[in-house]
């Protein structure tokens, strides 16, 4: 609940509106992530070969299954915008919550920047395929138009935003299935999948390459945990969030397997590992105009759906931090009519666009991956503290994940392995970016925490935590 003073009217208490169902949760999670199947995952092929990428895909899939299990339990109990940020406030404390909020905002804002960048490239590719001279297409007007439309959607209301996301994500997902069916059954193309002929059973870098491939195998799933940003806007949190998140995870596992299968059966791994849009390239190899157009549309839709979901999630995390005064409370306003965190939305979009236009794609991707990974590392800590402070039976949980503490320990071990992989890929850049979070933490403790109302940080109707 927040004060809003839009239009100089008397401050009134306005909440975000509860209008979303499981389908919207699915659309938010899968919408953000599916672009990773259309671009990005294939850099794991460059790191470890096609088979190495597949093994990494399975192992990182296990990491994300643990993420989804842990997240579903806590989120189905903590029904508030901000997702893991709000969880951190209740289980660990303000400084951790501030950091988790930053992970979320930066992971999504950077991912949005990468989506925008890719969307521009897809427009250029289409224009050049339609006869435009190479290097003459200025994609910026198209990118600005797309970002403006997405910003308006998000400003206008969460129901419409995620309904649109559902539609375009569904089209993108179906396009992958159609491509696989076309190749598998020879419909519309005489080309066949040739995994054996393309040497897909080999590990060119051995198991070291498999480990290195973890770095980009994350792109198969990065962002699925964003479903819990919708916690305050779903009609039935205990039902919709676990249902939407777990079906989303299943969708992504299927999409990842199909994507690998069709791409590795059509493209030499040395090419696949560096391709901008591998599924689109796989469609080009079919020679079918229908498939080429469909996969171009699917790739564009996936990039837009991801940017749309990222705007939604980054704004909610930023809004939540403003509401708690971890950031300026100016950003905590809810639109009196559309019931959206409109100031947070409007503030973050130009920043993402700037990252996209500045051509900082490599550091942007590094930052997004690192921020996501730091957030996953927090989850086992979160789960251990949650179960210790409120053991099963002490509070009502919407969902209880099985086999505790095995998923939390597995997640922690896989996070450490992924840090090693990110170190192999990014080297000391990783350390330089960690400095950002250390400096931001010190800034919070020294300059920002004094504005935080202590008791207001605990908003759940739970009993006193055990041991405190």
């Amino acid at each position, binding site marked *: 609940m927040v004060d809003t003073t839009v239009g100089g009217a008397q401050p009134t208490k306005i909440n975000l509106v509860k209008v979303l169902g499981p389908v919207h949760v699915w659309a938010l999670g899968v919408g953000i992530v599916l672009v990773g199947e259309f671009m990005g995952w294939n850099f794991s092929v460059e790191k470890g070969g096609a088979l190495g990428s597949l093994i990494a895909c399975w192992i990182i899939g296990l990491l994300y299954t643990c993420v989804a299990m842990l997240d579903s339990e806590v989120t189905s109990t903590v029904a508030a915008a901000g997702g893991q940020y709000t969880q951190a406030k209740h289980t660990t404390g*303000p400084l951790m919550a501030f950091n988790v909020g930053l992970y979320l905002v930066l992971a999504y804002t950077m991912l949005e920047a990468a989506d925008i960048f890719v969307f521009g490239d897809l427009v250029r590719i289409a224009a050049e395929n339609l006869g435009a001279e190479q290097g003459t297409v200025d994609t910026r007007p198209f990118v600005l138009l797309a970002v403006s439309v997405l910003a308006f959607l998000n400003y206008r209301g969460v129901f419409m935003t995620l309904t649109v996301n559902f539609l375009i994500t569904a089209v993108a997902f179906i396009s992958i299935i159609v491509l696989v069916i076309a190749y598998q059954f020879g419909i519309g193309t005489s080309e066949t999948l040739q995994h054996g*002929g*393309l040497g897909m059973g080999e590990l*060119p870098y051995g198991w070291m390459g498999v480990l290195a491939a973890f770095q980009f195998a994350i792109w198969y799933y990065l962002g699925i945990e964003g479903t819990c940003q919708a916690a305050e806007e779903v009609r039935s949190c205990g039902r919709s969030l676990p249902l939407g998140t777990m079906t989303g995870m299943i969708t992504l596992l299927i999409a990842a397997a199909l994507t690998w299968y069709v791409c590795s059966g059509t493209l030499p791994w040395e090419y696949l590992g560096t391709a901008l849009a591998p599924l689109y390239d796989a469609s080009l190899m079919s020679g079918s105009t229908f498939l080429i157009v469909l996969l171009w549309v699917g790739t564009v839709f996936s990039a837009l759906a991801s940017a749309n979901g990222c705007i939604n999630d980054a704004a909610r995390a930023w809004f939540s931090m403003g509401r708690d*005064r971890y950031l300026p409370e100016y950003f905590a306003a809810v639109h009196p009519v559309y019931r959206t965190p409109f100031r947070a939305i409007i503030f973050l979009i130009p920043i993402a666009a700037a990252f996209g236009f500045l051509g900082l794609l490599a550091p942007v991707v590094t930052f997004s991956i690192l921020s996501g990974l730091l957030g996953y590392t927090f989850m086992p800590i979160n789960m251990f503290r949650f179960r210790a402070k409120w053991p099963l039976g002490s509070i009502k949980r919407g969902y209880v994940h099985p086999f505790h503490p095995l998923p939390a320990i597995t997640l922690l071990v896989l996070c450490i392995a992924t840090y090693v992989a990110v170190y192999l890929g990014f080297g000391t850049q990783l350390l330089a970016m960690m400095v950002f979070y250390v400096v931001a933490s010190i800034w919070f403790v020294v*300059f920002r925490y004094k504005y935080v*109302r202590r008791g207001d940080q605990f908003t759940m109707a739970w009993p006193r935590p055990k041991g405190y």
Partner: protein
Amino acid sequence: MAQVYQPPKQSRLGQLIDAAVILILVFLALFIPLEMELAGAEKGDWLPGNYAVEQTADGGVVLKNDSGLIKTIAADGTVTFENLTWEALQQNEVMQAQWSKLGYDLQAAAEAITKRYDYSFDWLWLILTLAAIGGYFLFLVRQSDKEYREVIAEKFGNRS
């Protein structure tokens, strides 16, 4: 009951400055690795099979493998091949056909194929990096716990 902490009211200018601080930190975090030219694993020149590497007098590099394939990288970065065939690149007929469909001729495909990552790394830096991440989380948990006790005390009152 614990005393309720009343935070100071922050001015609009103060709020603006705080938002700017975060943004500046983010931009610095993005630009500093670029400015310092910090790099991770990079691809190096490679040939199929067993190969030897030689430095030339003019600062170039020559790679020769046991099947006679020679890759020369001149000081200005120009790459040339001798005895280049699909067989020398260990590309079978299926692979050749797919490269051709992608619009790659033998030379272009060779440039893509004869680059590989070198995953050798410095253990000390890896351990330092992991220790830094572990130390960061330890600091977060400990400092957060102090703040959390204030939150709980104000919300639920001091323990009697």
